[in-house]
């Protein structure tokens, strides 16, 4: 992994190393397709694009802010109780997201139901806090958090795009497949609405990514 503690005092805000923090999780170290974290939520909330987008926004906020807060407090948090301390911070942030969603996007919040609350236990969140924020300064931690949640978000969006388009013929709730298709016998694919198909789609994405990015292929021993 790329988490090497940043040593120099005066490093450019967007130095090469820091840009890498942003871009690495998009492909080479994608939290979902390479580290295989956060699979559960990406199966559950990708039936439609809109909840997936809001989930992405929620995770982006929680991971980025959580990383910053934990990183700022990293020297104050006793090592023995660090997980609990991290959990409290994350839970606080998730509550904010949850309340915001309930206030402004009530129906989506109902759709996401328990999965907003479960951001707390999302492996990506805890993974970033443990692996990166506890050892790095706030700014790199922020970049790392953004990079990882975007890597997660890309996958959510691709999967949700395919599932909503083929599963219900819509995107963001707008009908995309023209009615003439249905008149000629086209039918929405019911399997797209089921979680197993999301798993198949994630699998296909991993397949495509690995065949394009040969660095990811394990060398057989």
């Amino acid at each position: 992994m790329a988490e090497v503690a940043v040593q120099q005092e005066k490093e450019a805000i967007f130095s090469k190393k820091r840009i890498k923090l942003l871009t690495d999780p998009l492909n080479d170290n994608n939290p979902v397709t390479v580290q295989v974290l956060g699979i559960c939520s990406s199966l559950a909330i990708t039936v439609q694009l809109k909840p997936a987008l809001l989930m992405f926004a929620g995770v982006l906020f929680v991971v980025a802010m959580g990383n910053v807060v934990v990183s700022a407090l990293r020297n104050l948090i006793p090592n023995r109780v660090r997980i609990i301390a991290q959990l409290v911070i994350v839970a606080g942030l998730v509550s904010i997201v949850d309340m915001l969603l309930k206030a402004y996007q009530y129906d989506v919040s109902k759709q996401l139901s328990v999965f907003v609350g479960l951001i707390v236990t999302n492996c990506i969140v805890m993974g970033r806090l443990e692996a990166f924020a506890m050892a790095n300064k706030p700014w790199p931690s922020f970049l790392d958090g953004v990079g990882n949640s975007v890597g997660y978000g890309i996958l959510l969006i691709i999967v949700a795009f395919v599932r909503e388009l083929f599963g219900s013929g819509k995107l963001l709730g707008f009908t995309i497949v023209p009615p003439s298709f249905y008149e000629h016998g086209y039918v929405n694919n019911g399997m797209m609405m089921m979680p197993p198909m999301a798993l198949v789609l994630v699998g296909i994405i991993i397949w495509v990514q690995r065949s394009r990015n040969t660095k990811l292929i394990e060398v057989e021993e």
Partner: protein
Amino acid sequence: MEKKLEPSFKEGGKLHKFWPLYDGFATFLFVPGHVTHNGVHVRDSIDLKRTMSVVILALVPCLLFGMYNTGYQHFLALGQTPELGASFLYGLLKVLPIVVVSYAVGLGIEFAFCIIKKHPISEGYLVSGILIPLVLPADIPLWMVALAAAFAVIIGKEIFGGTGMNVLNVALVARAFLFFAYPTYMSGDMWVSMNDRNGYEVIKEGLVDGYSGSTLLGQVADAGFNGTFKNVAGADITSTVFSDAFFGFIPGSIGETSTLACLIGAAILIISGIGSWRIIFSTFLGAYAIGLLFNAVAGSNAYMAMPAHYHLVFGGLAFGAVYMATDPVSAAQTKLGKLIYGFGIGAFAVIIRVVNPAYPEGVMLSILFFNVMAPIIDYFVVQSNINKRVKRFKLASNGVK
């Protein structure tokens, strides 16, 4: 012709890229000329291609009867006398396009994979390509067949490494895909060919009163077992239902209706040594045993009261037992394992049929489930054998002391 064509496909030839394609066809049509060069080898004329050819031969009775029955049910539902020639012709015209699409799409994808991955073409799809149409209703839209064949070959087989590596039976993956993706086309009233090809408009004119396109199992699941059965025209067939179902004059997927045709196929497979009699036998046994058990405890669930022997001839149990469960790739490999595997398939199929009201037919799900379970069944069979031998060895060595 072989000699003339071969050089251009050989290394350095113009068409070398398509060598797998050439090799596949050449060895399919002619006896391969390869000979072993050293060492001792067991020689036999049977290879994968011949094995698959025998399975296809065993499928012919089901295919032909399926075509006939498709027309038979169609004319019966229209209130006409189903004549042999007309029925068969109707069924032929319905079934042939499905077979052609299934082969074209499946083989096309398989060939493409072979050329990209540069491995020789294997013949696994020859059988899957004919099994897929036989487990679908005759009115299934062709684009769905194409989609299902593509899904089955790519997700069911190629991602696991191609023929011989698949965890699940390829044809059943195709069927399961359609079953969950387009449930309205795979359940309820869809079992009698009454629709136009795109399946959108149901032709209602000319149908007899009391028409119902549901299968016998569907009738039982809907109304509970009350001792009576109806054919598609609504006539009471209670007295002949067993023989009707045995010979196959009932609505259902194209190839699955006739238990007799499946048994002929089973005989071919068993005599030629390609299908495992253990699996076929124990599948029927499992279904019958659980059927009897349900009969004994029947009470609140009217379906449980259906005589156990009906389970053996209704729906796809015979077809699944003979052609699907015996798939050597996805089945258990040990002798005892095969018996357990088959018994489990039969038992689970009946349990799903009877206990789960959402699925009047359970053979597909049951076989897929046991495909997944097959390696663990083998594991335990092998382990128990090892343990037994260790124990015997210990006893023997104690005796010596």
